[in-house]
């Protein structure tokens, strides 16, 4: 059953991912991306990454995509543009070929034998024991504490940057 659901959500993710790049309307693209993220979240859940799955929904679909949509609306890009928004057909074919080549290479390269370091159901058992947050939070605040703190500084920088770059300029700007 879980395998079947896995495939359903995976296909959902891929189809709507393709829809992102095919749609001419930016809003439609954004919403397709949201659905794709939801599918991905479901995949995370089925891989015993519950916390990450929820965070995916909350942060990606719920925050990042909202910002995307805000910007699309703000710039009034909601209408599909008359001017060609994508390259010509020839280019698209070449891009497709490049994509297939890339895919083939990735397949060819990821053939190594993986030696597991933990038993198959280890994570699930840990979650039963401590809850979904603890397995991620533990290392986060112990081994990766420095990275955690640095990331917070990064977020600060991003906030400042976004405010400065996005803020309305003085009227002297050419605009």
């Amino acid at each position, binding site marked *: 059953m879980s395998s079947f659901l896995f495939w359903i959500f995976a296909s959902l993710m891929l189809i709507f991912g393709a829809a992102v790049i095919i749609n001419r309307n930016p809003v439609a693209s954004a919403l397709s991306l949201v659905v794709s993220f939801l599918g991905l979240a479901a995949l995370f859940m089925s891989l015993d990454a519950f916390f990450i799955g929820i965070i995916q929904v909350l942060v990606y679909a719920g925050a990042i995509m909202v910002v995307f949509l805000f910007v699309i609306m703000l710039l009034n890009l909601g209408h599909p543009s008359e001017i060609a928004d994508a*390259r010509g057909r020839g280019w698209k074919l070449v891009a497709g070929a*490049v994509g297939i*080549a*890339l895919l083939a*290479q*990735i397949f*060819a*390269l990821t053939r190594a034998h993986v030696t597991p370091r933990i038993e198959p159901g280890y994570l699930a058992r840990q979650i039963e024991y401590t809850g979904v947050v603890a397995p991620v939070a533990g290392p986060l605040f112990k081994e990766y504490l420095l990275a955690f703190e640095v990331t917070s500084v990064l977020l600060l920088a991003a906030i400042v940057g976004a405010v400065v770059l996005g803020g309305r300029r003085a009227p002297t700007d050419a605009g």
Partner: protein
Amino acid sequence: MFLQEVTGVAHPLTATAARWMWALPLLPLLGFVLNGALSIFSAYHAGPADPGAPEAHGSHDVTGGGHDDHHHVAVRHRFATLTSIIGPGVMVLAFGLAVAIFMAMQRAGPELRTPFIQRYYEWMPVGDLHIDAAFQLDQLSMVMILVITGVGMLIHIFSVGYMQDDPGYPRYFSYLNLFVAFMLVLVMGASYPVMFVGWEGVGLCSYLLIGFWYLDKANADAGKKAFIMNRIGDFGFLVAMFMLWANIGTLEFDGVRGQATALGSNVVTWICLFFFLGCTGKSAQIPLYTWLPDAMAGPTPVSALIHAATMVTAGVYLIARSNFLFALSPTASLTVVVIGALTAIFAASIGLKQWDIKKVLAYSTVSQLGYMFVGVGAGAYVSGVFHLVTHAFFKALLFLGSGSVIFAMHRAYHATHNEDDAQDMRNMGGLRRYMPWTFVLMFVATLAIAGIFPFAGFFSKDEILGTLFIRARGSTLADANWLGIPGGIVLYACYALGLAAAFMTAVYMMRMLIYVFFGPNRSGERERDFLGEAPWIMTAPLIVLGVLSTVGGWLNLPESIKLGRIGLLDRWLEPVVGESTLRITHGAVPKVNLPLEYVLIGVALAIAVAGIIVAWIVLKPADLVPKREAKPEEGFERVLANKYYVDEIYDDTVVRPTVAVSRDLLWQGIDEGLIDTTLVNGIGGSKGIARIVGKIGSLLQSGQVGTYAWVLIVGVLFVLGAFTIR
């Protein structure tokens, strides 16, 4: 500072004045720097009152590059006094030091059998090659040093008077000082490379001084000609050095001397021949002599110092210094003798028909150098050096005397604004009435060069011819073959040539004397009032040289004429050349055959006297006319006057083809046609490959993000592809 004062055992000269020998070239070098600074400073800051300033007399010649001629007011250079002190001053100091070192060597006496070497630093340590910047002091270099500093000092003093009105006064003395410095390096070098530094340096100074009045193109051309012909000879010197290095591995005189016998006879011969090629360039022998007559374009004291007394004798010094090499190769020695003898007679014949007083002396120099080479070629190293010394005396005297004459003629022509040639003998005549001192001294010098007893030239020239004759009777040279001809015959033939050249020498020197000082004066009515003796500062050095030309023969009296201590120079130079001389004479000290000696002396003297008498009888100065009215020469006389057309032959066979090849083939053909068109334009020009590649490359810089993304992804594909394939 000194790596090593002495090789091995303590040298007798270590604690004496000889340890200051490095100051010998340094003093003139200091003079060069100081005088050069004065020259540059004054050229930079020429004010309106300076000679050479445009307002002063309309010529824009602040550095003194133009000949002092017609429209020029006699104004002395701003720094003339200072230069007159520095220029000759350093020479006086150098000469004093040279004398002091000489006396130290005298005191050391017979213990002085090895050279005194001072090494200053390692100049070229490259792999197995170790050349030090080192000076060496031995009897041979001492002789040269005394000649250079002594005669040089006299010529510097003479120049104070001769060049007094020249705008380039400090420049002249700086070049002259530099020349002396380089010449001293040449004779004091302890190895061939150090000597070569001096060799090249004197070539440079020769160029600078010949073209001293460079605004006149002919002078600059003469300087270039001298330098280029010297360079051809330098090629020979270099090849000889390379061969020495390749076969022996050392280039120091001491080292080569020790290992010379290890060389194969073929190798030694070629080394000697290549060295001799260098000598033909520097000392103006056949075939590289044509620059010397042209070099007379320079100031007369320069001709006296460089082209009579010192630089041109560098070749003779080289052979004397390399005596151990030449003694091992009879073939090379014979070649030297033959070329020397041929040059002697060839140049003498040209001198018979020259009208420019300096050209006569120039060809005389070439001829006398031929004698010197005959001497050192025949293994009579002492004789060659002896003739070098006496020749320095009387040739310098002749040149300086002619300088006095030219000075007087110039002054006369200036005063009357006459444009005639002041150096042409046809414009002179009867000057003994106006310039008695100069006349007497020139007469002394003429007797000396002709070889009349008891003047200096008699002893030195006779010694060369005498030794040549003796070698012809028995020596390694006589045993050898030269181009198939037995050596003895070659030597006898050269002896005959030497006698013929001696005859001609007497004739043309007497001719010069007669045309200049005897007979009626052809300078012109008004000019005569201005003809007079040169100032004392010019005549005094002449007197000193005159004395030396008279008594110089006492340096090396032969046994047959016991008028004092005999063979002084023989004994002095024995440690340097004795071994090689013995090698040539089959190890036997030649016994003096007095009757034969007297015969040889008598023959030489008779020839000289005959020449003088013939000249006196045949040449009629009254028949001469001034140059501007003179008829052109005819027949064989024309050939002689035009120097056998050698310059023209060289021009047609060497110069023109070289220029043609350089210009048409190499420049326009290859450089412009091939390289420029295909490579330069083809690659970088407006249609070139670089442009095309650049245009293609510029497509990558579209400024578009999309393009960059494409490039990135395609790059990733390639990288992954590399991994996949592997």
